[in-house]
């Protein structure tokens, strides 16, 4: 589902974000991407989104080779990917329903599909009763649920989460993780960058650890750090 072959990425300011990374993630996996701030987790996710291009090495996502992909094909790639971020990225002037529907609207889905699908996915994330609320009226956890609903509404094959619990308290985070786990159980491959040790340790999933851009650990059913 996702493969990186000897990928190196150096930014223009000479910071090397990823060094010679090779990773393969298969369909339906749940992978934690851990490491300190600046270890290259976000760059990893940006490469999968083709928001950034690697300097060396090959990136494959959802059966597509991203190197040299024409820019007009990028939208097709992104329709196979859902994204969740620390800062939710919701539109303040749109209701919950409109925010989620927006993701379908702008890729040209017909009105009937939107009307049918959005309530379904809001049900899934447990926000059916907040359908008409605006993001400003929701708690952080609820906003992140909306964001997850928007990422998942088009049933992507891969869900990429960059610090999805970064802005949330521990109790709320547990709820979000339960939701992500449920989504993963539908067969969606899930990659989650985080430095929430508690979450990683309690979930016991595959852990990929990055340190200054290098892959230093790849462990099935892992924990956040050795001896830590």
């Amino acid at each position: 589902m996702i493969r990186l072959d000897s990928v190196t990425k150096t930014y223009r300011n000479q910071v090397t974000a990823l060094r010679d990374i090779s990773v393969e993630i298969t369909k339906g996996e749940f992978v934690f991407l851990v490491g300190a701030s600046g270890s290259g987790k976000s760059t990893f996710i940006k490469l999968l989104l083709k928001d950034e291009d690697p300097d060396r090495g090959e990136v494959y996502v959802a059966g597509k080779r991203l190197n040299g992909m024409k820019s007009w094909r990028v939208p097709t790639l992104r329709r196979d990917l859902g994204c969740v971020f620390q800062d939710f990225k919701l539109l303040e002037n749109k209701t919950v329903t409109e925010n989620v529907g927006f993701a379908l609207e702008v890729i040209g889905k017909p009105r009937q599909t939107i009307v049918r699908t959005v309530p379904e996915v809001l049900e899934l994330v447990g926000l059916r009763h907040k359908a008409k609320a605006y993001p400003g009226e929701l708690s952080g956890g609820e906003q992140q649920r909306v964001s997850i609903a928007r990422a998942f509404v088009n049933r992507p094959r891969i869900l990429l989460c960059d610090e999805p619990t970064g802005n949330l308290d521990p109790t709320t985070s547990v709820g979000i993780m339960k939701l992500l786990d449920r989504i993963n159980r539908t067969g969606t491959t899930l990659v989650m960058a985080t430095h929430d040790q508690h979450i990683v340790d309690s979930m016991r999933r595959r852990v990929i650890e990055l340190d200054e851009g290098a892959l230093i650990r790849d462990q099935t059913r892992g924990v956040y750090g050795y001896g830590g």
Partner: protein
Amino acid sequence: MGARWRYLANEVAIGLRRNLLMTLATVVTVTVSLALLGAGMLVQLQVDKAQRVLYGEVEISIFLLDSISADQRTSLEQDLSDTGLVQEIIYVSKEQAYRDVQEIFAGDETILESVTPEILPASFRVKLDDPQQFEVVASQFQAYPGVEEVVDQREVLDKFFRIMNALRNGAVAVALLQLFAAAALISNTIRITAFARREQTGIMKLVGATNWYIRLPFILEGITAGIVGALAAGGLLWLGEATLVSRLKGEVNFIPFITTADVWRVIPVLVLLGAGLAAVAAFLSLRRFLDV
């Protein structure tokens, strides 16, 4: 498809309202530039019309000395037609010239009082097959016994047309400068809108909206401003034709003037130009700003 069009219309309306002042400035600039350009085009149409009719009627006038004898006059007329360049020769006697003056300046008493048949020279009005041959005829008959002067009436017209052409060139030059300013304004307005909506476009990119889908509202916004400006310019031209030209028509009746139909011919060109210019300006300003 319905959802898509509603989305587009909505986005364009929001964009235009958000920068009302910038939009207004843009529309006014487009209006002024296209009105000038349109005026230039109408002047050109006017010149074409006038030239076609007036050049068809102009003649050479060969003014005769009062001392010319009847024999000299007959041989002059004979030699003129022998050149083979002449289509028509009309003799205008002093009395005829006087009647012509009375007709042309009818109502203008000061001129009429100062003119008598005696001071007006008799002349031949000569129509050439090819008006360009004036020099040949002039040089041949300038020194002819009994001839006072050979005058090419086209010269008088040329002066008029030179003024018209200068007017047209001036209008077009200013119009081009203004169009450049209009393009810059459109481009700037769109950048501001794109910046204000960067969150939204960011999300659109993430969920896989195509480049065109993201750009279209911005481009349509520019095109709307362009078309509104062009229509306003068309309105100004129509107003100008209805007031200025119509009044001239009443007073000057020897040349044909542009009509409302000509204005209607110019307006579609202006609309196309306005829309095209806006589309190009918008597209160029977005290329860097909104790429995936």
